[in-house]
């Protein structure tokens, strides 16, 4: 396995959706795409495990979907514009998902945004994060 280094590897808490991610996450994302149709949303919610079997995803990806582990889905190749369709299927707001990914409640995340968002200072480089903690 060839590991290519990227100039964005040092950016913390960020999973750039490059061709490697797109390749590994393809079936996970195409499952999400299927949720654009109302009848598919219904079928998925009625039998999640069965519905997911239609897509040749890894078992780990399927588990992350069923656990609604939003960060894990991203780490396994999910793209946020796709995985957010699962959130929409659940009737969750985008800020709920965003909060979950950075370990914050929806209320605290919304408050952070109202206060101007997460600053760039302290969040540019992995070396700035102690124990993988985002600077809010």
């Amino acid at each position: 396995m060839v590991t290519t280094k990227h100039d964005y590897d040092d950016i913390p808490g960020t999973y750039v959706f490059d061709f490697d991610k797109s390749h590994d996450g393809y079936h996970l994302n195409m499952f999400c795409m299927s949720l654009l149709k109302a009848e598919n949303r219904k079928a998925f919610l009625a039998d999640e495990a069965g519905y997911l079997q239609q897509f040749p995803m890894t078992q780990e990806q399927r588990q992350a979907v069923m656990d609604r582990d939003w960060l894990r889905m991203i780490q396994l190749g999910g793209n946020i514009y796709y995985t957010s369709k699962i959130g929409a299927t659940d009737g969750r707001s985008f800020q709920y998902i965003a909060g979950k990914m950075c370990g914050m409640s929806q209320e605290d995340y919304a408050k952070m945004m109202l206060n101007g968002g997460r600053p760039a200072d302290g969040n540019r480089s992995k070396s700035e994060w102690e124990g993988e903690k985002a600077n809010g």
Partner: protein
Amino acid sequence: MAKILAGVGTSHVPAIGAAIDLGKTQEPYWQPIFAGYEKSKQWLKEVDPDVVILVYNDHATAFALDVVPTFALGIADEYQPADEGWGPRPVPVVKGHSELSRHLGTSLIFDHFDMTIVNEMAVDHGLTVPLSLMCGQPEAWPFKVVPLCVNVVQYPPPTGARCFDLGKAIRKAVEAFDEDLKVVIFGTGGMSHQLHGERAGMINREWDNKFLDDLSADPQRLTQIPHVEYIRETGAEGVETVMWLIMRGALNEQVEEVHRHYHVPGSNTAVGHIILENR
């Protein structure tokens, strides 16, 4: 002859569309965002363009990951507002200017821009939210639209320099079109935002405003910004601001900034907006 008169930069946050559609524009959270577009709506009415070339990106709606075109040009007579999972937005059908689109496609390809040509595509919030912000809620959109859809979802998007050069080629093509048309070009998306990962919620007001300054003061600097700088400084999804450089490339070297608006937050995003007139 057709002529590009001005450029508009604007964010296209989906929640802004929902706020309009649900009648929430006067709520305290949303009011400051919409207030910044009041002057813009008046300005656009006065300019009264025949066609808007609308540069935007699709968000896993018309295009999925099976095929990802870098630059996709619509040449259809009309484009339906897409169902993004909650039913289509209650906005008018988008009428195309197919003749101008076809002329642009031909001209751009002979100018070495290998465009993907699209005969049918639904248009999502990336295209319809800018229309709503700039036109309000009319019965029909007051101009025809040439949609230019750019991949900014799967890395790498086209470079800023390439976007700027495409803008220049668009201008050349428009000016060679043999019909008197008033054209305005929109560059949409951005500004700073990160929607995923533990760093979600990133905003960089200072960086964004320097970008807005240099659209008129030093656009050449903007064309040299590497993707990694957008990602690091403005959030991973902030890289979509490169689309504004297509708009900027289509304008004169000298432009006048006639309006600017910047507000945080629009949901998860810094809402940025600018109007540039050719000088």
